């Protein structure tokens, strides 16, 4: 491989990674925007999304690659089922662990979020065992450059990469439409700005928060499914890692900002892929966290975040 082939390859890897981070980061940023909580359990909802989608595939009898019409029937069905399941899970978490603490100190729900995160990880551990689990190769992988275009290149760009992008972008467009154009989206934006005033204007704040958790959970589920299909492996501890990187992405982009989360996800995706290649995979985590710390200290608003003065 020449140096530029390596760079292109790692950039493609970064793009797909970043797309998954972005989907998770959106859940963080939406919840933070609306109730100012770092939903620590969100990464584990993503992890369970992978496990749950696996269960849905198994239930539908899918064990190998999907073909032809299955790609347009079974696959969307599993997407919907997985997203519904994780959405419901996310709402349940809010009901049990966060909602009773809405009026208490800000650290209380953060601590329960960590507690929930540990519980979810332990559930996955007991469900699937401590070893990494294999995820069936449900999506046909075709080396596009070589097989469709006949180009003899060391760059490995497959239909799976295309799939990740083709699924992620419409999801983000749909989300943007939902937040900008619908009644619920307007309620969410109003509640994020000022919960009390929104309430006074007749917005059902609790229901708006519920919708936020619903949407965030659904996106995490979709991310889990994509992750499983792309990498064909799942671990019970992956939620913590992915969650922290996605949170870093959300902070980097400007927490509370949707576009920021998407942008931050991509940036973290690229940086981690390049770091794996050019520095060392062993140091990637340290590098990502260093970025997080530097951003929080010097530019807590992130790249696209708005200035929010301390309410003194």
């Amino acid at each position, binding site marked *: 491989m020449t140096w530029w082939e390596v760079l292109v390859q790692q950039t493609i890897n970064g793009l797909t990674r970043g797309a998954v981070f972005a989907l998770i980061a959106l859940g963080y940023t939406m919840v933070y925007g609306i109730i*100012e*909580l*770092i939903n620590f359990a969100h990464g584990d909802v993503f992890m369970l999304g992978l496990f749950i989608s696996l269960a849905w595939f198994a239930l539908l009898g899918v064990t190998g690659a999907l073909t032809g019409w299955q790609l347009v029937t079974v696959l969307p069905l599993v997407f919907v089922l997985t997203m519904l399941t994780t959405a419901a899970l996310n709402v349940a978490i809010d009901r*049990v*662990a966060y909602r*009773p*603490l809405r*009026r*208490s*100190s*800000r*650290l*209380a*729900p*953060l*601590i*329960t979020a*960590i*507690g*929930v*995160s*540990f*519980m*979810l*990880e*332990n*559930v996955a*551990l*007991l469900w699937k065992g401590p070893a990494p689990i294999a995820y069936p190769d449900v999506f046909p992988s075709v080396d596009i450059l070589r097989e469709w275009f006949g180009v003899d290149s060391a760059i490995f760009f497959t239909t799976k990469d295309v799939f990740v992008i083709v699924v992620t972008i419409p999801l983000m467009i749909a989300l943007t439409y939902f937040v900008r154009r619908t009644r619920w989206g307007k309620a969410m934006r109003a509640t994020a700005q000022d919960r009390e005033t929104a309430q006074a204007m007749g917005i059902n704040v609790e229901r708006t928060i519920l919708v936020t958790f619903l949407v965030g959970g659904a996106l995490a589920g979709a991310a889990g499914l994509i992750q499983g299909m792309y990498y064909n492996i799942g671990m019970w501890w992956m939620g*913590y890692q992915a969650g*922290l990187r996605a*949170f870093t992405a959300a*902070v980097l982009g400007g927490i509370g900002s949707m576009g920021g989360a998407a942008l931050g996800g991509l940036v973290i995706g690229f940086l981690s892929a390049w770091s794996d290649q050019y520095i*060392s995979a*062993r*140091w990637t*985590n*340290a590098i990502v*966290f*260093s970025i*997080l*710390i530097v951003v*929080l*200290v010097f530019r*807590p608003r992130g790249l696209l975040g708005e200035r929010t*003065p*301390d309410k*003194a």
Partner: protein
Amino acid sequence: MKRLGPAALVVALLAYPFVDRAVGLHTVHAVSDGMIYMLLALGLNIVVGYAGLLDLGYAAFFAIGAYAMGLLNSPVLGSPLYGHAWSFWVCIWIAAAVSALLGLVIGAPTLRVRGDYLAIITLGFGEIIPVAIRNLGDVTIEIGGWRPIERLNLTGGENGVNPVGRPYLPGVPFETDPMPWYFLILVIGALSIWAMSRLRDSRLGRAWMAIREDETAADCTGVNPISTKLLAFALGASFSGFAGSVYAAKLQAITPGAFEFQVSIMLLCMVVLGGAGSLRGVVLGAMLITIFDRVILSQTTFLVRAIGRATGVSALTAVDLTLWRWFFFGLGLVLVMLLRPQGLAGRRVRPVAGGDADDETAVPEPSAPPRLAAVPEWLRTRAAGVDASGAVLEVRGVTKSFGGVVALNQVDLAVPRGAIIGLIGPNGAGKTTFFNVVTGLVRPDAGHITFGGGSLVGLRPNAIVARGIARTFQSIRLFAHMSVLDNVLVGEHCRLESSVAGAVVRPPSVVAEERRARERARSLLAFVGLADKEEDLARNLPYGDQRRLEIARALATEPRLLLLDEPTAGMNPRETEALTELIGLLRRELTLSILLIEHDMEVVMGISDRISVLDYGTRIAEGTPAEIQRHPRVIEAYLGTGYEAEAAGRSGPR
């Protein structure tokens, strides 16, 4: 009886290992390990419980302590820096110092961020440290083919450090017997608890709690949030340095896996379960969790399996509850937060009825206005020595805008010594912003502020308090979960001098200073009519008392200028009258200068020497009360045309 309990505890702790040996339980090792974690939890309690800073990466300090010991006291790593196997007794202090230093390093960047962002930064450090330890076991630096450093083993990498040297004391068998370890850890633990309880009850401990309760109010009461928080990080870390170094020497081996995120969370569980901020609670929490983890989970597993075998249910025979360990820790965190957020041993507090100024507490039984004692003698002597000429505060052309809104526009104002200056104007006129600019909470865009000849612009609020300006807040900002007396003592913070070492050792000078501080605080409480309530929590006081407590706290900083932001808001007429009298008394007896924001026109017009009127950030009038009442622009903007008629009646515009 009161002395019997502690004595029995000491006897039990001393006798335990001998009983253990006699009975043949062999639990001393496990108990000693548990005590190390207890010490860690106590260190974390300083950061989380006292200073209120959520630290999710505390295991990093544990790691630093352990590796400081491991690297300095191990013969295996052939690096030029270490590998000489220093003495344990030296290393333990180095470990504590290095941990404290790291506490400062980690603390420094976190000072700019608050709350949950800070938690995430500590989490980040908690992740970076184990990664660094793993990777620094094999360092090669290559610059264009030249390798200045090749395969250098700095930390032992994934395999860790093994063996780590043991402590040496003549005649004490640290090699073969768990008992010396038990006593060593017991001594370190007891000394730590002793030091922590003294810190808690010192000037520094009060400052930590004030920061925890309300950082802005603490800053405006003379507590430097930066140094106070850094000290919390550094001292909290130093205890984990001790714990880590003893841990390394006891285990004789350390691996990076022992310092992961889960350890930080387990320690946090101990603190939160027992009750953050309570030494007894943290000890209890650490004991419960250690027993649960080491005894109950495994023993219950045996029990369930036995039941399974006896009843023939095969599912039960294969159960391993220890796999549920983290599930139970997570569940524990959730349940404690939901059911008993103050922890098992925490002080139970009455729930506050929602709302503020105008709820039930604001209209209490028509109590007799508090009897005011005389102005405390010490304040009078303190005030006497000050030069009596010229303006105390001089503000020239101060401008401040937020976005497009000009909150203050070229405002001038002077407060002569011993004068009461009223500041009035409609809501949103910029009065409170003016206070915030003078006290350093908000930095002006332009203009000069001088106080006693020196400029105040750019100074931190606590530095301005030290120069002699104190304030109260429009929405009362007391340290809600501290006692009434402690609230006033925080006010004295910037006039006290005891250091960290002084707080722990308590030499006679510190004891005397503390006694004097308490006497002064009590006399101030008597002055504002709260003498019998010093042990109450501030949040449990009725509304009027809270207002007066805030004034007492401000006076405790020994101000030369007092800024009062709507001091009579929400008070009944009799309380208002008493407070007006108190303000007059301060001026007469102490020649204290007072700047007063007030909507009660009877009060303002009655006691002010001069009045300034703000409207939309601009000063529209300045003069004596009589001039202001006739001023056409003031009547138009604020008082209203009916004022003159109404003034003959009772109340002003509210």
